[in-house]
């Protein structure tokens, strides 16, 4: 049932919508094909970011890949909670923690230990169009505790023009999703790992700029 909803939404609705009507183009999307758990990290400018990445995944990875979202934003009403869980396949993370709650890191590591994959936007919020903000520590904390899990750096360009933060009207433009190779963290400390991941995303950005140059 859940499989049907998720496949229907991402593959039958979003995939053709994004590629034909919106103009999202995937570069090296075969890098997303993974057998084990993996963390997909990307810059974040639009709700379309999640949609594009999920729609680009192979069928058999859809159900065990979860976008990570903020509970106060996406868990606001029962309808939003239902859609997040049953259609978007998202994990909702509380930004403010009450006594007795699992820490967000523990919550996400539980999913990784089950063999599931995550889509993380370390910038936290979508921010200004086409700007990369400073990264949150969460990605570092997870990879510090599970250093054997590979991550895939992704750079997206153009999403902030199609559907920027705070806008309701979607305007089609060409946008690119550049997917890097999966890799294992090289460095040790939490902050160092955050920095390494950020550099990996910036390398994808350079590659995007290179590809397009005269």
């Amino acid at each position, binding site marked *: 049932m859940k499989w049907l909803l998720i496949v229907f939404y991402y593959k039958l609705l979003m995939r053709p919508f994004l590629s*034909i009507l919106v*103009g999202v*183009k995937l*570069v090296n999307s075969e890098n997303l094909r993974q057998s084990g758990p993996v963390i997909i990290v990307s810059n974040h400018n639009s709700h379309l970011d999640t949609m594009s990445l999920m729609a680009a995944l192979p069928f058999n990875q859809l159900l065990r890949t979860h976008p990570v979202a903020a509970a106060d934003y996406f868990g606001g009403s029962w309808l939003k909670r239902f859609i997040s869980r049953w259609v978007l396949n998202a994990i909702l993370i509380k930004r403010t923690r009450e006594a007795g709650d699992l820490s967000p890191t523990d919550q996400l590591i539980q999913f990784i230990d089950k063999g599931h994959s995550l889509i993380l936007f370390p910038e936290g919020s979508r921010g200004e*169009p086409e700007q990369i903000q400073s990264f949150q520590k969460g990605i570092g904390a997870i990879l510090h505790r599970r250093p054997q899990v590979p991550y895939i750096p992704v750079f997206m360009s*153009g999403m902030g*023009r199609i559907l920027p933060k705070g*806008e309701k*009207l979607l*305007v*089609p*433009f*060409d946008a*690119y999703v550049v997917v890097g190779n999966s890799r294992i963290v090289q460095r040790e400390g939490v902050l160092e790992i955050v920095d390494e991941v950020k550099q990996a995303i910036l390398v994808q950005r350079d590659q*995007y700029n290179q*590809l*397009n*140059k*005269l």
Partner: protein
Amino acid sequence: MNYFLSNRFIENNEVLSIILVILGILIFATVLFFIMGRIYPGDKVRELQQRTKSWWVMASVFILATVVHPAISFVAFGLLSFAGLRELASISKNIRPEDRKVIIWCYLAIPVQYFLAYMGYFNLFMIFIPVIMFIWIPFVLVVRGFTVEIGKSMSVLPVQLMFTVFSISHLAYFLSLPELTGFHAGGRGLLLYVVFLTEMNDVFQFTWGKLLGRHKIIEKISPNKTWEGFVGGFLTTLVVAYFIRFLTPFTAIESLFAGAIIAFGGFIGDVIVSAIKRDIGLKDTGNLIPGHGGILDRIDSLAIAAPSFFYLVYNLYYA
């Protein structure tokens, strides 16, 4: 099945023969470059193979457009315009972030323009973008209220509409032209004629330029274009235009004139897109990976050649 295929297709010998010619050329080129790639492997041959691959895509699209039911062709041409406009709007430096919502109006003009073409409302079809949208877009920009550099957007958006929607919709309008007595190939024949000649002109100019090219024709914009390539391509296109004039109602002289218009128009369209790309520093308009984007690179020559040819044949035979 009969509903989807246009019923006149099979009896239409002229159209069928030119389709066979196109397929023949493509198969020849594919085999030739495959063998060349085996003997002299290298980037140049790979580029030729890439080009042949995109010709296959182009040819399939246009051949299908002449074979299937016209309604499907109109949707296909509309999508071509849409992808072209989206690409042009995406790479343009002169569109301000505030113009996002105005671009929606540009996109909405596409179904209207193709509907007018489908219904054959010629007068409205002719003025909808150059007159009505030309006024409407600046008006919407004014209503939005961002005046800083508004002049740029007022000029750029209508030009982009002209280049990708108005021009390409003439290809679709060929399918709405009325039947002429004694002229069997009809609008489909004319459509194939202009697309085939425009694309062949590109190939001829490229080939003659590689073989003989010495003198740059427009170096600052398109460094690979030479006078030898242009003249050689021009003359070869005239010859082909003369020999395949069975697709048109033309006399011999008229077919040469049509060939000249298509060759010259194709060149103009090509360098216009080259200049736009040079301004932005792009190599290809959207060609990060083969098979994706790059729509403008495919339709640039057609954008000028198609309407030029359309008005020639319209004024000679349909007016």
